[in-house]
């Protein structure tokens, strides 16, 4: 049997996704038996020129983690799209832009001036340092998820993806039974569907941040005034965060058929807030509750800003 060819690539990424692959423990040996890893910059040296020499469609499957932030990320996404039969967006950053997508709240110049405030010179695409010329890939104006720049065959959500999901994907790869294109390897339902906590259907009368209270471990976190993104987030992780007494922050992206995860969660919170009988008098109390949410984008769009309308605002 000819071995499969597998590629793993990181674009704008923290490295956590590469490491998460090892969470499958000994299953990695099955993978090694079934597939040759022809590209994995995190673990093995690779030259982009060699990659360019590969025939189109030569790599059976590429797991692409990280978002598109630089010209290099973009070029590699395009190159790998050509070389891979199946291109997989692996992890939140590739899937929805991820937590680093919050950078779209700032312009490129704002990012540079904050990051390199006291540096001279601020790195540019070509910088002259001590008589030498240094070239860096262009830093793009905005960060985008992978499918904003090339077509994507499969999605593996999570920051990083949970072991069970990676394991299921590897099994599908090894057995050659990949599902229909476009599949998101996770639940079709939202996280609440698999969360063991008990819903009491209480209206929210006060909003807390996780460090402000010790949450009851049995009751739904939303019912306790903690903003849990479970209702607007795709399940599949087994409710790992609620099980650790922490609210879901939405890393698995929107549920099937929804594009704007942040908006969906914002609707949910708006519907749950209640301070008694509806009437003009309660409006002020409601406003006071809403104002307790300090960082609205960071709360509702923590992982999905770059894939939503509000993450593509022109800034000058």
């Amino acid at each position, binding site marked *: 049997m000819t071995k499969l060819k597998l590629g793993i690539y990181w674009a704008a990424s923290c490295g956590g996704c590469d490491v998460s692959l090892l969470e499958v423990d000994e299953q990695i040996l099955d993978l090694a038996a079934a597939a040759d890893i022809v590209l994995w910059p995190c673990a093995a040296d690779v030259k982009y020129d060699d990659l360019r020499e590969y025939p189109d469609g030569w790599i059976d499957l590429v797991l692409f983690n990280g978002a598109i932030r630089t010209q290099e990320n973009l070029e590699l996404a395009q190159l790998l799209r050509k070389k891979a039969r199946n291109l997989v967006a692996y992890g939140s950053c590739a899937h929805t832009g991820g937590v680093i997508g919050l950078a779209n709240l700032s312009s490129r110049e704002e990012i540079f001036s904050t990051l390199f405030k006291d540096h001279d010179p601020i790195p540019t695409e070509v910088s002259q340092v001590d008589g030498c010329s240094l070239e860096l890939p262009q830093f793009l104006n905005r960060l985008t998820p992978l499918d904003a720049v090339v077509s994507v065959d499969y999605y593996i959500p999570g920051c990083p993806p949970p072991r069970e999901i990676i394991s299921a994907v590897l099994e599908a790869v090894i057995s050659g039974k990949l599902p229909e294109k476009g599949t998101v390897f996770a639940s079709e339902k939202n996280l609440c569907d698999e969360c063991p906590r008990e819903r009491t259907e209480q209206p929210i009368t006060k909003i807390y941040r996780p460090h402000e209270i010790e949450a009851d471990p049995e009751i739904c976190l939303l019912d306790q005034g903690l903003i849990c993104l479970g209702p607007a987030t795709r399940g599949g992780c087994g409710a790992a965060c609620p099980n650790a007494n922490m609210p879901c922050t939405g890393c698995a992206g929107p549920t099937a058929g929804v594009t704007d995860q942040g908006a969906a969660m914002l609707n949910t919170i708006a519907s749950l807030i209640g301070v008694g009988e509806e009437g003009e008098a309660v409006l002020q109390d409601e406003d006071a509750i809403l104002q307790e949410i300090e960082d609205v984008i960071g709360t509702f769009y923590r992982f999905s800003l770059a894939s939503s309308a509000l*993450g*593509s605002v022109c800034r000058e």
Partner: protein
Amino acid sequence: MSDTGGNSFEPKIVAFLCRWCSYAGADLAGVSRLIYPPNVIPMRVNCSGRVDAGMVTEVLAKGADGVLIGGCHPGDCHYVNGNYKTRRRVQLLKAALEQAGVNPERVHLEWISASEGGKFQKTVEGFTTKLKELGPSPVGCDD
């Protein structure tokens, strides 16, 4: 997105109007032959509570410069409290818009009853003027 800023700029407005109050109010403005700017594309919804934040961000992403949401006055919603939910949503959405660099005044919520044709006219006039001042929407940069 629309061409230029300045005086020649004609904003595109999508108006979600609840069927029981605001859409009827807009109808009344029409049959009363009140004149208002043609910039508004009215969409009838059963209740302002039907308008979720994702619908607003979607029309902004598709090129609207402003979104008007019309509902019954507090206490008058045909479905009891749909307009209260909408009010809270709009409030949160405005905070999100502001943080994302979009002027929150691009989303406007107004209570317009079935008998307030004049208020509908004034609202559209005022909103169109405001959006002309603000210029084309910055949502949907394709750089």
